[in-house]
Structures are given as C-alpha cells and as structure tokens.
C-alpha cells in the first residue's frame, strides 16, 4: 500500500530532514510513527499525503510511483487518504458539520446525499450537539475530534494522523485511540505519528522510529 525506498528530504538548502528512509505498510495494518519533536514525523507524513515531493528516493502509494503520477491524478489518490493534521486545519468560517462534510462536498456530492452520514459520524465522535458551532468556539478536544471526523468521513483506505492525541487529556486520548483501532478493524490502513510514549505503551502495534532523520523499525 505504501512503500518508501531510500527517501531523502531537505527543505531548500537546509540539512536533510529525512535520510535514506525505507519502509513498507501493508494494507490493513496499523503503525505508530515515533520520534522526538523535530525528528521529521510531520515531514514524513507530508510526503505521504502528497504535500511535498522527496528530494531523492522512491515513494509508491497504492502501487503508483508518486514521482510519475500526473497532477490530474492527484485528487483521486488524495481521496483515498484521510489526514488528521497536527494543527487540525479546520476552516474557521465553517461550522463543524461543514468542515467535516468538506471531503464529500469536493466529490461533488449533494447535501442530501451526505448530510445523513456526516450527522451520524458527528454523533459517533461525540460532536452531535456541536454541529453548528464554528471551530473558534470548540475546545481543543472537540476540534481534534472534528479533524478526525473530517479525515475519516470519505472512508479512506489510508489514514494518517499527526499527533492526534496531542491536545487532549489521557482519557480522551485513549478513546480516540480506540476509534482508530475500530477503523483499522474495518480495514483502513493507519499510520499514527506521536511522541507520546505513554500512549504507545498502551497499544501493541509496530513502530517506525525516527531519530535525527534515520528510521528504525520495531515490530
């Protein structure tokens, strides 16, 4: 599903943020991506959701070489990927409902087609009574759940989550993790970046550990 081979990345003329990173994610697997702050977790995820191109190396997504995919094919690939951003990136002029519905709206689905699914999903993540609230009035945890809901609403094959428990208390963190595990059981391939060691210890999943740009794999 995802394959990195000797991937290197640098920003501009800066030092290499990622060096010779190689790994493989099998369909339906769940992995953690760990490493200290600044180790390059977010950068690696950005490569995965096609917001960045690697400086060198080979990346394949859904069995397609990312380097040779034409621009016009990118939307179709991105629709198979759900992303929970570290900073959420909710659009602040839109309600929770509208933010979460966005991936369906860009698929040109009509409101009648998607509103039921979106409402159901919002109920599921516990935002059923916050549907008409703007992000500015949501708590950190609520924004986090809205961001997760937006990432999964399109039923992606690959879910990337960047520090999804970074802004919530341990109890909610555990609940969100169970949500990811639930989705993984439904067949979604999941990669969760986190530097929260305590959280990692609660779950038994293979880890990709980034340290100073190098990746080591612990099963």
């Amino acid at each position, binding site marked *: 599903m995802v394959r990195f081979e000797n991937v290197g990345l640098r920003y501009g003329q800066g030092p290499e943020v990622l060096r010779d990173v190689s790994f493989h994610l099998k369909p339906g697997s769940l992995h953690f991506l760990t490493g200290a702050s600044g180790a390059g977790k977010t950068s690696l995820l950005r490569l995965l959701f096609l917001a960045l191109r690697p400086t060198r190396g080979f990346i394949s997504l859904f069995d397609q070489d990312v380097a040779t995919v034409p621009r*016009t094919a990118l939307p179709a690939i991105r629709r198979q990927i759900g992303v929970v951003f570290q900073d959420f990136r909710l659009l602040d002029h839109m309600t929770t409902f509208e933010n979460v519905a966005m991936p369906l709206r860009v698929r040109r689905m009509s*409101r009648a087609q998607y509103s039921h699914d979106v409402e159901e999903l919002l109920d599921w993540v516990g935002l059923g009574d916050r549907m008409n609230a703007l992000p500015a009035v949501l708590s950190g945890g609520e924004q986090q759940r809205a961001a997760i809901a937006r990432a999964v609403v399109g039923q992606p094959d690959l879910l990337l989550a960047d520090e999804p428990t970074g802004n919530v208390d341990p109890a909610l963190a555990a609940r969100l993790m169970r949500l990811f595990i639930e989705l993984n059981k439904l067949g979604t391939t999941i990669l969760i970046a986190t530097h929260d060691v305590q959280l990692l210890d609660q779950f038994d999943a293979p880890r990709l550990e980034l340290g100073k740009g190098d990746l080591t794999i612990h099963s």
Partner: protein
Amino acid sequence: MMARARKKPLLEGSDTPPTSTRVRRTAQIMPDSGVTGHTLTIVMTIMCYLACLALGALILINNAIDTWTSDISRQVTVQVRPLRGADVEAEVLKAQAILEETPGILSVDALSLSDAAELLEPWLGETGLLEELPIPRLIEVSIDRGAPPDLDALSARLEAEVLGATLDTHRRWQDQLVRMAGTLRLIGYSVLILISFTTIAIIVYATRSAMFSNRHIVEVLHLVGAEDSFIAVQVQRHFLRLGLRGGLIGAIAGAITFTVLNVLSESTPAGGVGQAINSFSSGAYGFSIVNYLLLLLIPLVATLISLITARLAIMHILHDTL
C-alpha cells in the same frame, strides 16, 4: 488493497432518517469578504460606467454617421450669385420655377434679400451696404426622402439654365463631418478596448490576491481531494457576481447619465451636442429603446471578462501548486 464494503455507511446499526433540520446553513467554501472586497466592486463599477459612456458615445456617432451618409439629405440649397449684367431676381424666379416642376421636391423657399441680409448681419453689421453688395440669393429646398429627385441632373439643369446658380447638397460638409466622426469612432473603440484590457489586468491581480489570501482554504481543499476545477468554481463564482454587479450598476448609471443629459439639453439649439444626445433617448436617429438595450452589453461583457479571466488566472496558479 483490501476488499471491503466501502459503499456501506461508515457505521452500522443506525437507521435514523436524515435529519437535515439539525443543520442550519451551508456556508460558501470561499467567504465573500476574502475574494472580492468593496474596493474591487467600486473599481469594477467605475470601469463599467466608463465603458458605458464610451459605448453610448459610439452609438451616437454611429447613428449620426448613418444619417449623414444616407444617400439623400433632407435639405439642399440653391445659390444664385448675382453676375454682372444679369437680373438676379429674374434668375431666382427661373430657378424657383425649375425646382417647382421637378418631382420629388416638397417645398421651395427663396430667401428674400432682407432674409439674406439678416443672415449676414452678424458679420457685416447693420450697414446700408447690403443693397450695394453682390449678395448671393439662397433658395431652401426640401426633398422628399422617399422619392428623391435626381440631384445631379437637377444641378446640371440649374447651372445650364440659370445664370450664376449652383446646387449645394451640403455633401462636402457631410463628408468632412463623417470623416471627423470616423476619427471619433476610432477613439471610442480604442477607449473600449483599453477599458477591457485594464479590467482584465485588474481581475488577474484580484484573482492572485484572492488565491493568496485564501491559500489555507485552497490547501485544505487540495488535501481533501478537490480537483482544480472544483476550487476554481469556488473562487470564480465571486468574480461572476463581481462582473454582473459592476456591469449592471455601471450600465444603470450610464443610462441615467444619458437620460439626464438629454433632459438638460432639451432647450439647447438644434444641431448641437444637445441634439446628438437627444437622439440617444428620443430616437431621432433610430429607436431609443434599442440604444438603452445596447447598454446591457456592458454587464454581459463585464461578466464574461471577469469570469473567464479569473478562471484562467486560477487554473494557472493551481497548476503551479502540488
């Protein structure tokens, strides 16, 4: 890839009916304020107003040229110069007789000597000189435009039979006026083209700045899998509205301007600028309603320019993103 029931609802075990009443509204993906602000709307309206004035002027000029170049003028003048040894009065009567028997002539009106003197008074003053001066005598002739006489033949006959007579069809004046109007028309078209290009430049600039100030939205749209065309539609709908609005307000302001000028110039002497403006709405040179309808071209063209320019600019910008 795992085979799984992708099309099934995300969550099982819920069969509540759609509850759309729970959701209040659907916001625009790109908020209005971030794309086309007040300043841009005002600039667009002013450009459309200017275009309207230029178009109105062009309509007037074209109508005037039409009238001036239409084969026959309504009025011609026969001039009888007093030649040595000829009796002017007799020659005038002769000319009058010829004119009256020519078919296609509605009226023949010979100006008396005192009429002629009156015409010359502003230049010569009230002197008693007039009797001594060889003042040419004028005969005003109205022509039936439906069945006009053969003016060339008439001219030849007058010159042959009446001493000192010439037929002045005002053609030379008309030719000069038409040439001048042609130059004005060229200027009018140039102004319209300049306004169009300026508008295009403004829209390109505004589109770029809208894309820049909304780049966080564009980025999110991209990352959730929006196609370029979807993003373009979100931005360009604002430019569609901008063109439509600016165009309509500009055109209405233009129409009001022409109507007001028309009312103000009602009392000015015929043949002047006033008459030309009157002709716009009173339809002296055609149907006024048609002229006002032509002004509706402005919102139409403004909308097209705004929409197409914005679309191209957006696609160009998106093409450079990942």
